[in-house]
């Protein structure tokens, strides 16, 4: 299922957080949103998972306006891993994952066999099966993030939206999460801070600046020293990954940076 933001503007209290933003994500593509703090990444994502209505413009799922769907129906197609943090209540991991069935399930009947299988499969895919009966508040940040992804998978969505999912994760969990996104087979829209991980994980990057798309294309086209300088205000050197060839950014901290030769030159 493909997703498109068509000329989306979001104004809150007179301030435009997102301005005439256009973005198309093809079915099965992994597209990263990158940009500085306050550039509108989260706002754009919130329009896709219906936490926010665009002031003008539309969000399209396979060409039809998502605003025409009930919240429940769009949650059957689009699942989100947000930055809410953990709940205050100590739900078990299984209970959290089973909430992924909420948009499919009307009324109060217990989950059927197939639905429980879907949840078990989702937990297996992200490796949290052994945590099934644990309370979510006793988990580590990495475990908790995987539980939220299992919940999103239990929604059986076509589109997965993630808002800075690697925050607070150690490097192993960051790498595992992004490699999972590459192989999960869903249409993925993910906001990321780490440009190097974004370059490695995404088919395409959309660079946001002041609420609109400043550049959009494969990482090797987008990640240029000039564009990074214009967008983030720092000028990196770009090198190629020795194995995969994707562009990676390295930064020079200035004359005081220690050099391999020893102390200051």
């Amino acid at each position, binding site marked *: 299922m493909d997703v498109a933001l068509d000329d989306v503007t979001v104004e809150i209290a007179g301030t435009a957080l997102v301005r005439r933003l256009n973005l198309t994500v093809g079915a099965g593509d992994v597209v990263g949103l990158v940009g500085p703090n306050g550039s509108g990444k989260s706002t754009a994502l919130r329009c896709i998972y219906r936490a926010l209505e665009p002031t003008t413009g539309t969000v399209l799922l396979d060409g039809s306006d998502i605003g025409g769907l009930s919240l429940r129906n769009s949650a059957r197609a689009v699942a*989100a891993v947000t930055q809410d943090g953990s709940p205050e209540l100590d739900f078990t991991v299984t209970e959290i994952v089973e*909430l992924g069935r909420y948009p499919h399930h009307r*009324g109060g009947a217990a989950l059927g066999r197939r639905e429980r299988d879907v949840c078990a499969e989702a937990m297996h895919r992200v490796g*949290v099966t052994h945590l099934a009966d*644990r309370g979510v508040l006793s988990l580590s940040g990495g475990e908790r993030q995987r539980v939220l992804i299992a919940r999103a998978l239990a929604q059986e969505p076509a589109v997965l939206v993630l808002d800075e999912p690697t925050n607070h994760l150690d490097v192993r969990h960051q790498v595992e999460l992004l490699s999972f996104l590459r192989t999960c087979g869903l249409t993925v829209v993910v906001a990321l801070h780490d440009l190097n991980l974004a370059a490695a994980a995404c088919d395409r990057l959309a660079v946001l600046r002041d609420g609109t798309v400043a550049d959009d294309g494969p990482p090797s086209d987008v990640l240029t020293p000039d564009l990074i300088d214009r967008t983030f205000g720092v000028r990196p050197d770009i090198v190629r990954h020795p194995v995969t060839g994707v562009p990676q950014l390295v930064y020079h901290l200035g004359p005081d940076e220690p050099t391999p030769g020893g102390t200051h030159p």
Partner: protein
Amino acid sequence: MTTTTRTPVGHAATARPPASRPGTSRSGTATAVAVLTVALLGSVVAGISLGSAVIPLPDTLRYLGAALTGGTIGAEDVTQYSIVWDVRAPRVVLAAIVGAGLSVIGVAVQAMVRNPLADPFILGVSSGASVGASAVVSFGLFAGLGVYALSTAAFLGALLASALVYAAAHTRAGLTPLRLVLTGVALAYGFQALMSVIVFFAPFGETARSVMFWMLGSLGSATWQSLPVAAGAVVVAVVTLLRSGPSLDVLAMGDESAAGLGLDTTRLRRMLFLLTAVVTGALVSVSGAVGFVGLVMPHLVRIVAGASHRRVLTIAPLAGAVFLVWVDLASRTMFAPRELPLGVITALVGVPVFVLLLRRRGYLFGGR
């Protein structure tokens, strides 16, 4: 993150054992409900039998049987029968209703504002009711309504206060938890000030005392006539909330996650607000503001039943009912013939129990 077996096995080695929670399985919940139902029936009978004048259990049961089945009693039993059926029975049943209602509304309010410190009175309901009540006690407002003047004024005060809180907290972005809490707390101070002014200018010296006693909660005015409205409100609350159990679980995930799961959070909060205002208003109008039950019962139930709202809402009304029946019994027997306000007992008994349980069971609310 991948499907290799390494990840699960590697983590299992360091996994802590799951906390034991007797009520978390379906059979555990059924057991808890059965035990609490029996306990409630026993508590009600005990509450009716015991008091400043103890009526022996066989006699109590005989009178209750006679009243319920339309049987006859001897002329020499009339006084005791009247104590059992006209005085104590409605009072004990009202205790059960109020305890059940405050407990489930406590769960609803804590879910609505996502705050463990919230209780049914956080929306200004009790302080609004106290304005109405103090106006009646001080100046004889609604005198035409006779014995119903106090509860009518309290109910109207509660609804008016809730409406003001709603109007002040509502924005174009809907009802946000923090705004609701802040508005409720701020306006509650305003209503309390208003109540103080009314009491201060009251023509009778006893007024402050009566208002304070009412504020702290009492079931002394319970009659069979005062029960149906409160009972109806509590039944509606329990049924509605049980139906909303999964939605309350989703709301607990946070508003962003809830949107992603297809929940209309504003609509759910509106429903919870209306339910809280009406049901709490109805309870406060017949019992005053019994503190602590609505704050603590949800936590106590979660300690044994886990977080799932459907389980908590199944067990909480029964637990709250049992608790308040015994609290009421204590309030009228500890210093008989004087009565203590219910709020005093709920705090004196409940606080230490709550603190002990919090410390012992590794109960987690909002992290460690």
